[in-house]
């Protein structure tokens, strides 16, 4: 040990204080950055008299893994919940005013009013008008569902592009981390960046990671490889438009089909699984329910041979492009809600006669029930009104099948959607709470505490002062020595 050594050590100390201060200032700068992981500069003794700073990053690996898993689940559930809110607003409205059930009730009322005064042609027109409203509601609801599916499809396409983009960014970030690890340089910023990308990716698909040599990461989603040395392709063919029978194409990660979630408390992790679930399950069920309402209307308002003469029942007030034969009973006909219409023969706007509703006979004289042409013939109208309460068989594939009346089926459809939405919303609250809790634990653990940084800065100031003092002392001693040389 010598004075020169002392000088050298003091000099190193100044350098270290500088580096430590820069770490503190980086911490302070990033105190509001959620993706920032706090660093601390630790001193290590290397050889006697030389100390170096090593910068440690306070990552909490298990918490981070937990938080990105919760993030995947949360973003999936939020997506489901939001999409259902959207579906509710177009299919049910705030108080059910847009539901098929409400239109059906109005139509029933119009029929009832007409039946009470069947000779009044205006009431007949109003009943047909109400039937047209009902049909338009079904048509509109069906196209809203298909528009929703198309927009979800677009969203999936955009998300897939974003995922591919994130993966290629991840490639660069991963490379930086690996290079930095090999070169032994400070890779903390790169790690922060890579973790932030990982967070973004796990919003879209679930991700599990495998660590390899040199901090290389392999990303696996479900069973599919997402990133291994190079990003894998995530492919998707967007459909430009959706009809009730359109089947959306699958998202493939490295050739493996990404599975859609199931259930209102969804099993999906990441937005893609949730979007697929809404596109391929929820909306398809809702469409099926509307189709069944349409089929029920065609069936219940069919014209029967009043003589019992064995003529087949044919479509009456409500018809569809496959008419006048009735659609097969008890089976959903995809797209019926889109194609159902009010028979032009009944529609005064198209030159039709609303009185056919009272009398029957849209399919020829053999189907006329009011054979005498009595103006106050209400039997048929009353029967129609009552039939809305009579059970028919609905397809179980729609989620609410079985024997029930058209009115209760239509209400059941609302129940199905609202139940799904309510469960999804509750699950979203739960998953959000879990995510928030995990994230706040993570940020509590890895974030920056300003007070601690400030006190560290004070410490550093003192060290700097002391080192500077030391240099001056050595300098004075050497001065004295030099003064001794004459």
């Amino acid at each position: 040990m010598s004075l020169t050594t002392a000088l050298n050590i003091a000099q190193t100390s100044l350098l270290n204080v500088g580096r430590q201060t820069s770490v503190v200032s980086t911490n302070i700068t990033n105190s509001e950055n959620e993706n920032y992981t706090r660093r601390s500069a630790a001193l290590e003794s290397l050889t006697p008299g030389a100390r170096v700073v090593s910068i440690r990053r306070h990552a909490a690996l298990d918490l981070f893994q937990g938080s990105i898993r919760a993030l995947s689940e949360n973003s999936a559930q939020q997506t489901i919940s939001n999409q259902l809110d959207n579906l509710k607003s177009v299919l049910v409205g705030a108080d059910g005013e847009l539901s098929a059930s409400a239109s059906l009730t109005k139509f029933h009322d119009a029929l009832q009013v007409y039946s009470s005064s069947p000779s009044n042609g205006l009431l007949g027109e109003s009943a047909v008008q109400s039937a047209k409203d009902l049909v338009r509601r079904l048509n509109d609801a069906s196209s809203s569902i298909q528009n929703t599916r198309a927009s979800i499809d677009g969203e999936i396409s955009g998300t897939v592009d974003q995922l591919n983009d994130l993966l290629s960014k991840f490639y660069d970030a991963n490379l930086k981390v690996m290079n930095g690890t090999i070169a032994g340089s400070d890779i903390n910023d790169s790690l922060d960046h890579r973790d932030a990308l990982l967070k973004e990716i796990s919003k879209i698909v679930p991700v599990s990671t495998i660590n390899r040599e040199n901090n290389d990461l392999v990303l696996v989603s479900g069973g599919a490889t997402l990133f291994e040395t190079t990003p894998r392709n995530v492919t998707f063919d967007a459909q430009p438009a959706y009809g009730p029978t359109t089947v959306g194409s699958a998202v493939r990660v490295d050739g493996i089909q990404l599975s859609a979630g199931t259930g209102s408390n969804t099993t999906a992790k990441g937005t893609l699984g949730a979007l697929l679930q809404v596109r391929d399950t929820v909306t398809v069920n809702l469409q099926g329910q509307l189709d069944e309402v349409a089929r029920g209307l065609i069936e219940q308002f069919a014209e029967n041979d009043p003589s019992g003469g064995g003529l087949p029942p044919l479509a009456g007030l409500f018809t569809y492009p496959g008419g006048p034969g009735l659609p097969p009973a008890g089976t959903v006909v995809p797209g019926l809600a889109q194609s159902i219409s009010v028979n032009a023969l009944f529609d005064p706007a198209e030159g039709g006669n609303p009185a056919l509703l009272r009398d029957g006979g849209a399919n020829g004289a053999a189907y006329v029930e009011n054979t005498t042409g009595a103006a106050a013939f209400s039997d048929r109208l009353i029967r129609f009104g009552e039939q809305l309460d009579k059970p028919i068989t609905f397809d179980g594939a729609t989620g609410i099948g079985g024997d029930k009346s058209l009115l209760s089926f239509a209400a059941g459809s609302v129940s199905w959607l609202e139940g799904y939405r309510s469960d999804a919303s509750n699950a979203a609250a739960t998953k959000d709470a879990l995510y928030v809790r995990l994230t706040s634990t993570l940020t509590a653990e890895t974030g920056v505490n300003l007070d601690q940084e400030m006190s560290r800065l004070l410490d550093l100031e003192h060290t700097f002062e002391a080192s500077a003092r030391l240099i001056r002392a050595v300098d004075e001693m050497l001065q004295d020595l030099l003064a001794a040389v004459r």
Partner: protein
Amino acid sequence: MKVPYISSLSISQALRYSMASAQSQLASAEREVSTGRLDDIGLTLGHQTGKFISLKGDMQRLETLIDTNGLASSRMKVSQSAISQIVSRTEDILSSTASGVGLDADQSVLASVAKTALADITAILNTSHNGDYIFSGVNSDAPPITDYETGPAKAAFDTAFSTFFGFSKDDAAAQAIDAATMGTFLDTVVEPQFLGTGWATNVSAAADDAILSRITLTQSVTTSVSANEDGFRQAVMASVITVELFSGNLGEQARSAVASKTRQLAGSAVGNLANLQGRVGLLEQQVTSANERLEAQIDILGEHANSLEAVDPYEASTRLTSLITQIETSYALTARIQKLSLMRFVS
């Protein structure tokens, strides 16, 4: 003991999250307090929403039934009063024919009374209500009774008279018709024209089927009376034979036979019409009680729907108050935490 580390960000974020959730709950609680209804019914009721919508729909449907029942009731009320008027007209004839049938002058008075009665009965039976002829049965777009004087009934009567007797009623030979022959004429020839098939051909356009009305969701009843009911036919026949046979050249015997037939017909008509009134009364009663049931059902449904969507105002306003308190506490805490910084103590 491990001293857990906590970052400044998570201190401020914890409050930020709770603040955001409290504020969104506040908005919803405000709406609930002001409307007294659930803010988002679907979200709260979930699978029960369909039930709620059904209840609302059923209430609407029942109200419509009450409306349409009003129409049926008023139709029956009109029918009821119409029938009473016909009864009184028929009684006029009865009383006129009961008194003198001897004098010629009396005969013409009697004929004219009957003529007025016939016109009245025709007009009453042709009453329309709300665009429907109430006595036409289901054939409500046509007046049930064609005017006797100008319609085919008179011609048919005159032809039948001439065919039966070989001369018209104004012929001098008519004086000689005896009571028995007249009785046979009335029973075998005239009666089928009114009480038999001739009624539909010559007099009535009404359908036998009465108007069917659905008075509850599951119950349909007839709510009109057809002009083809026997009471009306007898009343009309009584007045027709009085008008026709008291205005011709008939002799004493024949007239008394006519008068006795008239009395018999009118008497039976009054009886039948009273029956009819009773039936209509019963129907009215049925509609009224249906209405009462509907009202009761609406009340029950309404209560049920209300129990699903209503918010306890006390609970809601308590929630609102506690939310406001919570938010205020958050504000206060934020302000204090902001002050809690080493920066303030290091200068």
